[in-house]
């Protein structure tokens, strides 16, 4: 009996609890095991440094590589230091074009021109100058960078936006090369970050020979119909323009004739990225490309016509070493000094090397072979000279400039009708070539006439006086003599 009471009592106790539980719950829950990331296993991706650095004795090549710094270029000197060092190690000489003199003047003596991320537009004249430079055998390297040209103004919250491709593409247009206003990325296979893109496929050129894998850090893609695409993205390399790799993507290209190289990034030139994977070899290839420029100078490049370290100076005709010619030679020596060259006075035709021949137009035996080179005939009566491209020219008051480029050495011949006019011809060449001389190919005739030559013009300043009408009398130019 008491047992029944116990069970009944227990039921009475449990029932309300049970009713409440059943009212509120419809079952028991069991929680599954919750997976979480294994944070301890994540490591920082590290780049492979595989490029050996070569240290060889520097043998100067005399080649000048001109870096553009006159177009608000978005790079610091430190960023291109590895390239500059590599160029110097390879015997090149690096100079900056800072805009203090015009581009045309600076390119006269350069073998290669390097443009990095400019934001100030090039004038039509500058683009033509570069074109002429490339046409004469100079090398043009154009480097863009997708990380340049934008900056946040933290005071205004405005993003300043000056993409370098807008400035660069007009320079590249004559060579059928153009950068896209994008950046290349690879989310799946990259060097530490999606914008650090590996390139393992290459266009077949000497430039890319032996390259295994290189990395570019925030690169624009580049297009060319006639040129060779050099660094090619793989199937997971995308352009930010389309988020796809339709048609294939490239980050570097060489123009069809091989003298213009365009690369969509220049971070790979900077330490430590210049040593990641095969980037060191890529930098070396860039150096080789720049130093391979063999320019054929023309009279437009005056006075930068010599390529050898020593220039032989050969007086001919009536030109002798005397009080009249020494100032000329001093001027020549000073000019060559500035170019890093030495002068050597010789009395007979050297077998090879750069030669500067100067003197008077005579039937000199030493002079004859030089005149023959240009098919120039002296009239026996000395009344006229037969010059190809000019016809018969009276020698009086005339300076004759002949230039012959050659692999073994360049030859410049300067002749006048009399030794007295030689200084006038030198003056015309150095400072007034474009206004005093007429050119036809590598022959120029210049006016050295004391009566008419602009080189001897003397400006006589008429005293400024107030005229009755109040107008000022401007200085007038009157010929000297």
């Amino acid at each position, binding site marked *: 009996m008491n047992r029944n009471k116990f069970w009944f009592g227990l039921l009475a106790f449990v029932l309300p609890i049970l009713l*409440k539980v059943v009212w509120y719950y419809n079952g028991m829950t069991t929680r599954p095991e919750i997976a*979480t990331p*294994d944070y301890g296993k994540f490591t*920082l991706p590290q780049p492979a440094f595989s490029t050996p650095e070569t240290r060889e004795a520097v043998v100067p090549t005399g080649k000048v590589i001109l870096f553009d710094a006159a177009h608000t270029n978005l790079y610091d000197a430190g960023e291109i230091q590895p390239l500059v060092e590599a160029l110097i190690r390879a015997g090149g000489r690096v100079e900056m074009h800072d805009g203090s003199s015009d581009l045309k003047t600076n390119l006269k003596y350069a073998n290669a021109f390097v443009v990095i991320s400019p934001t100030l537009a090039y004038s039509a004249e500058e683009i033509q100058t570069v074109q002429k430079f490339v046409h004469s055998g100079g090398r043009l390297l154009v480097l863009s960078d997708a990380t340049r040209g934008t900056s946040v103004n933290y005071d205004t919250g405005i993003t300043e*936006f000056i993409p370098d491709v807008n400035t660069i593409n007009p320079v590249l247009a004559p060579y059928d090369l153009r950068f896209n206003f994008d950046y290349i990325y690879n989310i799946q296979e990259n060097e530490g970050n999606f914008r650090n893109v590996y390139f393992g496929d290459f266009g077949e050129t000497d430039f890319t020979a032996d390259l295994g894998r290189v990395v570019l850090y925030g690169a624009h893609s580049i297009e060319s119909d006639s040129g060779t695409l050099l660094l090619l993205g793989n199937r997971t390399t995308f352009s930010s323009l389309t988020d796809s790799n339709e048609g294939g993507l490239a980050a570097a290209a060489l123009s069809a004739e091989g003298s213009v190289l365009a690369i969509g990034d220049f971070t790979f030139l900077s330490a430590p990225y210049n040593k990641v994977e095969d980037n060191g070899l890529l930098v070396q290839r860039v150096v080789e490309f720049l130093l391979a420029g063999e320019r054929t100078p023309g009279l437009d490049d005056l006075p930068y016509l010599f390529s050898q370290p020593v220039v032989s100076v050969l007086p001919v005709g009536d030109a002798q070493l005397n009080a009249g010619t020494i100032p000329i030679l001093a001027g020549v020596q000073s000019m060559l000094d500035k170019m890093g060259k030495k002068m050597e006075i010789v009395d007979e035709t050297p077998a090879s090397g750069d030669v500067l021949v100067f003197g008077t137009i005579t039937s000199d035996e030493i002079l004859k072979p030089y005149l023959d080179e240009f098919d120039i005939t002296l009239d026996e009566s000395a009344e006229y000279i037969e010059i190809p491209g000019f016809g018969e020219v009276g020698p009086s008051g005339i300076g004759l400039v002949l230039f012959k480029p050659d692999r073994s050495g360049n030859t410049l011949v300067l002749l006048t009708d009399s030794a007295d006019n030689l200084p006038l011809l030198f003056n015309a060449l150095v400072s007034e070539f474009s206004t005093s001389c007429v050119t036809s190919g590598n022959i120029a005739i210049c006016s050295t006439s004391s009566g008419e030559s602009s080189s001897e013009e003397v400006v006589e300043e008429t005293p400024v006086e107030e005229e009755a009408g109040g107008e000022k009398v401007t200085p007038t130019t009157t010929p000297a003599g």
Partner: protein
Amino acid sequence: MKSEKSKALWEVIRSWLPWTLIPLILGVLAAIAIPIPKIGVISFNDAIYDYSSQYLMAQIRYAREHPEIRAVVLKINSPGGTVVDTEAVYLELIRLRQKKPVVATVGGMAASGGYYLISGTDYVYAKPTSSIGNVGVIGYLPPAPFLYEEIISTGPYKLWGSPRDTYQREIEAIKQGFYQAVIAGRGDRLEIGPETLLRGQIWPGTQALELGLIDALGSDSDAIEKAAEMAKVWHYDVIDVIGTIIETFEPTKFYASVDGVNLPYPEKPGLYMLYIPPLPTSK
């Protein structure tokens, strides 16, 4: 005779009464003492940084430690925030989820670190135009190390923390952690691979559903019902967990500069799991 019967009945009742009434009263009292199951609602409408994460974690801890809260609904509207605070909240959320179901419901946005958090819940609701995704890390590079004349230190990175290059690689490792968190949370429900997810794109709720970033489009009420279903409760009360928190935290600035100006980006340099809307450009 009748009186004897009544007397006998009374005797029976008297002998049974202590065995029925008292246990019944005790049972009713015990039933009353059993708390009504609750669905705890944690609302979060902010970036994730030290101050906001402390409040959020306090709510999560409260929900975990109180057995009457049978399931939790995380109502979120956040662009994300600092890496470390996001990870801290995520780990607290995982501990809660080990004990109780957690259902997320997205308001305007669950981007970057905000999505990091909801990827660690059991079920995710969003509105058709909620902004979902932005998986990835963003940060400012520190300056290249240099020497100050007037500041001395005992090592090259004592002042700068780490080399610029290391900093850049660090965000790649953090990104991997983010991706693994999404994979761990979403599992087979995720319909896209890393090549799409890690682009950092933001998708509207409708597309996020197609891509498996969320589980359903629905209201906050749907989320509460789902949480109750997962906790297997028929009837329940809904409580705002924030109302139960008595801890206080010192407010700190996240978007505002030291002089109080509101900025569109964090004032302090560092690494973030944060969606920063594009700044206006000058052209």
